[in-house]
């Protein structure tokens, strides 16, 4: 009952004309960046955060969240029509979606993608609505030791399972932890690693790091080989048949549950959720051989799961203040820019923010269904915009976004340097997500560590004497050991099969 009352409060705020407008702008922008390969939701959200400072904080968060879940809808369009997924999450969608398009069934594939996204997106918000307050009340009992163990666990999982190499994941994460320590120490007021530079006193800008890591390398990688995106596919009728919808309904429900659960886990990105759901669906299918050849259930499984994972990812953010993936990390940055700290107290201190955001997601999903069913032809035409036209504009908008954050040209230099660093890291297969997540989590982790050690007079036994922190630290160790073993096994297989370089 309490949940429904809160939801009613959320809806009463979310349906204000301003919030409806910002929701529409967010989901439209999300669909646009999802359709356009080369500019993802992470970079877009990072660029827009500083520009939202003058907005009402709720409207700003509604718009930024809209970009995230909207991009999941949009990315399937280019995946189905031109076999170029706008987002990694739609790689799986392209397996069957593009095959359907080649058979002249692009319309039903796009339609099923929109319907599955809508069903799973909406049902997963129901999950978020009931699961998040429950988790939040559990997390209220967390002390500094549990908080440190939780951040340690979250980062360890990410370091272990992102990228091909464990050591590269760890190096990337350590770099993020250390970059965040530059500047003034909030606990003591002491300056660290600033070398008397006034620019470094306030620390390295989060926006500069995020835009530098995600927008600049994207442009540089694409500039190596410029290609013109153009599609030839005929769309035809958009709605799938009634039989197709009935056939795919169980798939959509399964995809919702799988996507939501995967989304909660650190590192459980929409792409991973889509893959897991598709794999399970193929295994239980009556005709598994049709998967990869244009099975409409394949499109529903992938799209349903990746949309559901976006809501799942909000659970650890809203209840623990821990972002499980890069777009959620940027969303955390947006909360912080607007002086709202996500975590166990968020539901008590800012219920209007959380519940308006949740209510806006219901509205946003309806808007996305309308945008992606009747207007799919318009988004499809956008796939034709050549990359050389978009890329220079992204660079200038990135510049404006970073400069606007603190009105500092120094931050723009930081963006460029981090961008070049990000480009080299991507080429050498260093994962970028651990760096940005560690950069964001570093102050929380340091505070929790210092407070714990102060409470225990310097004894690290505090982390092992409390059941929750002990469990989390053990899980972190198990995940590190597991990652190490699985990589060794993988290397052995590669060596035996002579697959070096693949």
């Amino acid at each position: 009952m309490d949940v429904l009352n809160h939801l009613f409060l959320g809806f009463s705020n979310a349906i204000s004309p301003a919030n409806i407008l910002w929701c529409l702008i967010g989901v439209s922008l999300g669909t646009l960046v999802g359709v356009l390969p080369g500019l993802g939701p992470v970079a877009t959200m990072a660029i827009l955060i500083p520009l939202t400072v003058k907005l009402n904080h709720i409207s700003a968060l509604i718009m930024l969240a809209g970009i995230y879940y909207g991009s999941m809808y949009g990315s399937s369009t280019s995946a189905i029509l031109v076999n170029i997924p706008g987002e990694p999450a739609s790689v799986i969608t392209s397996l069957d979606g593009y095959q359907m398009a080649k058979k002249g069934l692009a319309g039903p594939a796009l339609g099923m993608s929109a319907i599955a996204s809508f069903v799973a997106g909406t049902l997963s918000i129901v999950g978020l609505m009931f699961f998040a307050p429950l988790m939040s009340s559990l997390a209220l009992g967390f002390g500094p030791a549990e908080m440190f163990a939780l951040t340690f666990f979250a980062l360890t999982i990410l370091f272990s399972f992102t990228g091909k190499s464990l050591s590269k994941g760890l190096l990337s994460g350590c770099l993020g932890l250390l970059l965040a320590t530059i500047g003034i120490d909030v606990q003591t007021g002491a300056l660290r690693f600033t070398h008397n530079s006034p620019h470094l006193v306030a620390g390295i800008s989060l926006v500069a790091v995020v835009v530098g890591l995600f927008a600049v390398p994207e442009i540089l990688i694409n500039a190596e080989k410029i290609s013109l995106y153009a599609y030839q596919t005929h769309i035809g009728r958009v709605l799938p048949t009634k039989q197709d919808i009935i056939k795919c309904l169980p798939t959509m429900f399964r995809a919702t549950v799988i996507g939501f659960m995967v989304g909660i886990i650190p590192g459980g990105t929409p792409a991973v959720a889509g893959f897991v759901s598709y794999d399970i669906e193929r295994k239980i299918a009556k005709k598994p051989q049709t998967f990869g050849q244009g099975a409409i259930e394949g499109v529903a499984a992938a799209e349903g799961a990746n949309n559901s994972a976006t809501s799942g990812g909000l659970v650890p953010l809203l209840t623990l203040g821990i972002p499980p993936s890069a777009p959620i990390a940027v969303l955390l940055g947006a909360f912080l820019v607007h002086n709202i700290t996500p975590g166990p107290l968020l539901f008590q201190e800012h219920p209007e923010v959380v519940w308006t955001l949740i209510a806006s997601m219901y509205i946003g999903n309806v808007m996305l269904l309308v945008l992606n069913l009747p207007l799919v032809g318009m988004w499809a035409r956008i796939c034709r915009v050549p990359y050389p036209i978009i890329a220079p504009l992204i660079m200038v908008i990135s510049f404006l976004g970073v400069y606007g954050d603190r009105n500092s040209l120094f931050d723009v230099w930081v963006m460029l340097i981090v961008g070049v660093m990000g480009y080299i890291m991507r080429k050498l297969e260093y994962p970028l997500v651990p760096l940005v997540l560690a950069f964001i989590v570093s102050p929380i982790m340091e505070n929790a560590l210092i407070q714990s050690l102060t409470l225990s007079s310097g004894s690290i036994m505090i982390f092992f004497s409390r059941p929750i922190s002990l469990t989390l630290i053990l899980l972190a160790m198990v995940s590190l050991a597991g990652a190490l073993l699985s990589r060794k096994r993988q290397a052995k297989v590669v060596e035996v099969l002579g697959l070096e370089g693949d």
Partner: protein
Amino acid sequence: MVLMEKTTSALLLVLGLYFTVQSVSLGLFSSGKPGVGFFPFLGGLILTIISCAQLIGTLKICKDTLEKPWSDKQGIRNIVLIVAFTALYIWTIGILGFLIPTIIYLLALVDLISEYSLKKKLIYSLASSFILFLIFAVLFAMPLPKGLLW
């Protein structure tokens, strides 16, 4: 690629050592409690150890690994020029203001990565710069860098 792997590992090792040593000088403990340098010391130490292992691993493996090219000549040229143009753009924007360097920057980038006619490129860079200026400076009232020429 192999050389870049080695160089990156070596740079990370240097960075790890820098943070470790600097953290010690900041103070690891004060009055029995963890000091200002405690957390970065831990991070720096882990970075040093892993980058050292990574460097040793790279030196060992690379002898048997086929050298993969970084990119083709055209790709490398594009990357270097984009970074150079962007650095020049950031530098000049502080002196000349937003508008003129943006027009030149957009023209330079679109010229580098596309094969449109000069007329189209000029229209694109002029129109985009003015639209961006109108959106950000006028509509959002964002304080853009002002120099000698706007």
